[in-house]
């Protein structure tokens, strides 16, 4: 089991983490390439600062909590805090980041991490309940939407249990292996699924750029489809 743990912590971690970074880099590169190279000349009228301000305003989305979405929005917000803070700033993770990437990140206390983990688990379950029991949420949900939520839950649940032996029904190393492997599956999933919003959220927000249509494109589409005979 120890060999498995070492493998998961070492080469497998490096591999999956590398895939995630490469995948996310590719997504960002494609978007930036398009913006700078293809649309570059037409970007001067885009309200960049307004878009950055708008994006930042969602970091603490207090003014965006609408009637009818209060519980969902608060749950979603709290979940995101845990999902960002715990993997990066839990002391055990900070040690790993330093060893693995040489990053010197500050650590949150164990108590804070515990509270955030429990909050993330509770909020994820609530979001899962929304998807399961609300018809409107079900309408827009597919299998992947449920699977990903469970997948996000797994490292938090297994990590919490591994750190709290009194609650842990399984041997520590089994739970720890589950924790690491589930996180690594998540690494692979991030660039390939909707979890890619971790980097794409800003590019989603720049619809003002996409409203800058390409001059002459309509003509070329019409010509390709209808030839000389343009149909109005």
């Amino acid at each position, binding site marked *: 089991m120890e060999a498995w743990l070492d493998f998961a912590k070492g080469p497998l971690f490096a591999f999956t983490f590398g895939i995630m970074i490469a995948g996310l880099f590719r997504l960002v590169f494609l978007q930036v390439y398009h913006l700078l190279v293809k649309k570059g000349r037409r970007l001067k009228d885009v309200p960049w600062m307004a878009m950055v301000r708008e994006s930042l305003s969602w970091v603490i989305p207090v003014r965006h909590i609408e009637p009818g979405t209060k519980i969902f929005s608060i749950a979603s917000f709290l979940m995101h805090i845990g999902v960002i803070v715990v993997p990066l700033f839990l002391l055990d993770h900070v040690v790993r980041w330093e060893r693995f990437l040489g990053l010197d990140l500050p650590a949150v206390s164990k108590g804070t991490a515990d509270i955030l983990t429990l909050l993330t688990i509770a909020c994820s379950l609530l979001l899962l309940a929304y998807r399961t029991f609300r018809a409107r949420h079900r309408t827009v949900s597919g299998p992947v939407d449920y699977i990903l939520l469970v997948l996000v839950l797994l490292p938090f649940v297994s990590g919490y249990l591994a750190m709290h032996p009194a609650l842990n029904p399984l041997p520590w190393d089994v739970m720890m292996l589950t924790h690491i492997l589930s996180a690594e599956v998540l690494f692979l999933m991030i660039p390939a699924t909707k979890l890619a919003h971790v980097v794409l959220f800003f590019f989603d927000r720049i619809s003002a750029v996409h409203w800058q249509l390409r001059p002459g494109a309509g003509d070329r*589409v019409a010509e390709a489809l209808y030839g000389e005979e343009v149909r109005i």
Partner: protein
Amino acid sequence: MDTTTAVPGIETIDSPSRRTLPYHLMKHPGDDLVDRFLEAFGRVLEFTDYKPLLDSYRRSNTKCNRCAVACPVLQASGDPKDIPCYRTNLLLGIYERYFTLDGWLKSRFSNAFELTEEIIFEMGDIFYRCTACRRCTRVCPLGFDHGLITRLGRYVLSLVDIVPKALQVSVQEQLEGETHNTSKVPRAGLLDVLEFLAEEMEEMLGVELEFPTDREDRDYVFFCAVSDYLMEPDTLMGNAAVLYASGDWDRWTIGLCNYDGINYGLFYSDWHLENIIKQLVSEVDRLRGRNILIGECGHASRAAHDFIPTFMGSKAPPVLNFMEYTLDCLRKGKITLDPDVITERVTYHDPCNIARSGWIVEQPREILRSFVPDFVEMTPRGSDNLCCGGGGGLVSVDEIHEFRMDIAGRMKAEQLRQTGAEIVVAPCANCKKQLKELVEYYDIPCRVAGLHDLILQSIVIPGGISPMERKERADLFTI
């Protein structure tokens, strides 16, 4: 409810109405509709810049469903197919399946969805239930522009002849017809209307004037929704009164070759949008005008303001909405508005096309507050205001009147009733038509007016009849 899987990850609601196109759309899709749709979609992706947008959206669509609370159509209909995210996913699903490598791979490993005529018909239906008001975008944590996706969906549909007849007939006349405008108002008809308006203004305001047509080298070339010449004389006279009272009568003109600001291309087609813009700009060039002044019309203002720079680049003449011009005159003291004339309670409806982006929100309010003592706000207001229910070209489609009243406009009617206002100011030709129908349908004791309709009543005309005297005369006439 019977359900079938149409798009990966999406449950679609099956109903008999999905089997055929709604009756207001063109009905000649042909046998090879699916192939033609995919070819059209492919060509659009090849020549336009939508691909990165679709790539970003399909990769990050969390389907959180927050948009559901913002959509007035969905709030009224309760029908899951009206969820903005659901609609967007229909198109994203097709994009992923047919135009991405991983979508194609997925289809090799599972019994993936195939595009069918039914799904195309469903899109024809639900893309024209959306008013493209983009209110959902403001509550989407990721900022998804469902209005843009609706428009793209409509664009591809239009390439396979699925488009509302009312829009198609209008743009055909505008681009190919003799009159070059959507309401088929001939030049002689326009001149008659202008003569009539001048006579009315002479009688009402006590000043003699002649509308300037086809004058070259003017500061402002004026375009309004051409239907205003037939339906909204008070708005036009209000516009003219501001130009006269401000001393700018020699600085503006109406072109006689093209006098229609309407651009339905904004609602459904890049090709039409661009060609109508070019037609408009060529008229300004012909007259060597320096600015484009757009009357009270939301979509005409947005189409000109946002897309003239897009398509014409550095050659683009500046675009001004008439309310901006009026506010400028007011601030500079070039016009005076009498605050004792309008005594009714007045509220203001924000047209989506000028307010959602925050472009024109406070300007009309500043004007209104300067001469309307009893001004009340709607809730929500400004950029968050509700669509009238006729946006996105829907108001021009008479066949869906019932949908516009019962569903798309129901929230607006309720919002309007709650203000207790006797006059609702709606500075947009589309909104005016929809709101007039709404107040009648829901029996709301409220009159729909343009901002310049009220200005016409209150403006002080140098050397003319005073606003109070005009009011007394009008009251006498009413009795």
